[in-house]
């Protein structure tokens, strides 16, 4: 018998692939936001490369928030979530798997798109690896926060969860941009990466537990 985590992973990925909008929309959104900056600020190479870390990170944050409502809303409406809560499987793990799937669908494509963004914003080539590392850690944290926001605003508008989540995403934004900025200036950036990793290490258990609690609000 296959474990239910595997079944859940397979099912959700299948649903996402059949409905291409779920993973393409954040991607296109990310690229459009990136395109807006050279159009609005002018195409000078020096200006753009100095702004690139911030621009890429802001676009990534907004794009990962875009698909947040898909994490639980669908399952809540069709009753899948109900059956998870009565299945006696640990809901904590369920939430973690859901977050992981959300990251696979939105975070991972963003990593690829960010390479294109680095190219068009003239980000120095040596700092691309730092950018990708920071984005891996940062977008996963954003998926965690997004799950909490989605659980708290279950059945309500997506903009509400964005307003809830955005203030909490500021530390990620600061750390992420610091990583890239340090890499551009040839400075040590592992410290910032470690802080981001630490945030994940605390965030995964703490936010998953609180998300379970938030989901239960809709089942009282």
């Amino acid at each position, binding site marked *: 018998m296959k474990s239910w985590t595997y079944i859940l992973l397979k099912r959700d990925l299948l649903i996402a692939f059949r409905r291409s909008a779920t993973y393409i929309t954040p991607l296109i959104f990310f690229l459009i936001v990136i395109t807006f900056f050279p159009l609005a600020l002018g195409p000078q190479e020096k200006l753009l490369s100095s702004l690139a870390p911030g621009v890429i990170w802001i676009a990534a944050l907004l794009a990962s928030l875009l698909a947040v409502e898909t994490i639980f809303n669908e399952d809540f409406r069709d009753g899948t979530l109900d059956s998870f809560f009565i299945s006696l499987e640990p809901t904590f793990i369920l939430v973690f798997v859901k977050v992981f799937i959300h990251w696979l669908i939105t975070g991972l494509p963003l990593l690829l798109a960010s390479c294109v963004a680095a190219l068009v914003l003239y980000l120095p080539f040596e700092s691309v690896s730092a950018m990708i590392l920071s984005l891996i850690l940062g977008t996963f944290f954003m998926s965690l926060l997004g799950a909490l926001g989605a659980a708290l605003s279950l059945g309500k508008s997506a903009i509400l969860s964005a307003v*809830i989540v955005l203030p909490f995403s*500021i530390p990620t934004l600061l750390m992420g941009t610091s990583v890239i900025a340090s890499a551009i200036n040839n400075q040590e950036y592992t410290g910032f990466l470690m802080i981001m990793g630490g945030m994940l290490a605390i965030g995964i258990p703490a936010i998953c537990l609180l998300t379970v609690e938030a989901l239960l609000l809709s089942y009282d």
Partner: protein
Amino acid sequence: MGSPPLFYRWSSKALVWLGVSSIITLSLGLFMGIGLSPADYKQGDVYRIIYIHVPSAIMGESIFIFMALCGFINIIWRAKISGMLLKAAAPIGMSFVLLVLTTGSIWGKPTWGTWWVWDARLTSTLILFFIYAALIGLHSTIEDKIKADRAVSILAIVGVAIIPVIKKSVDWWQTLHQPSTFKLTSAPSMSPEMYQPLLICVIGFYLVFAFILTLNLRNEILERESSKKWVKEVIGNQS
């Protein structure tokens, strides 16, 4: 404390004491601070804004810790009163943070020459302001008050991570903002004539918070229990 009518009756007495003592402490502290204490040798009289700025900064942070504690109790023991306390404390905390930011920028203009700098202490305080806004916003969108309390409790527990960052921001980063005025472990770096009024002001601000919190809590209780018989009796007696 658990029974709303009992709390309501008891708190009307406490309100008088809290009100009187907060007025006395705060006016004493402010009079000593603004009237009696000597002017700073470098900043002159501008520094006197710390008698409002520092206590409200302390309040903005400690109210958030208080709210996170209430949230924790609310999530684990489902104590109704802790949810109401959380709801009642949020707008007060937000006002204090607004007060810190405004007094800080009024002080910053003559001393730093600018209303605002993107320094770690200032930015993290601004984030705290946004988190307060998110908590209050979330509460107002959920119809069922008890569910709203629990949702806000969850968010308050996550948000409390910002408090140590604000506290330590002056030590971790090179900032324009000066290090803490008060430390528990060492003697204050100011002269006694300056920090004694500040200490009194801090106590006064805590009393003001307790006073407004009790007022808010009483309103919250009346609103939530408005269908109960005792509320009708109380309202009937007053009008």
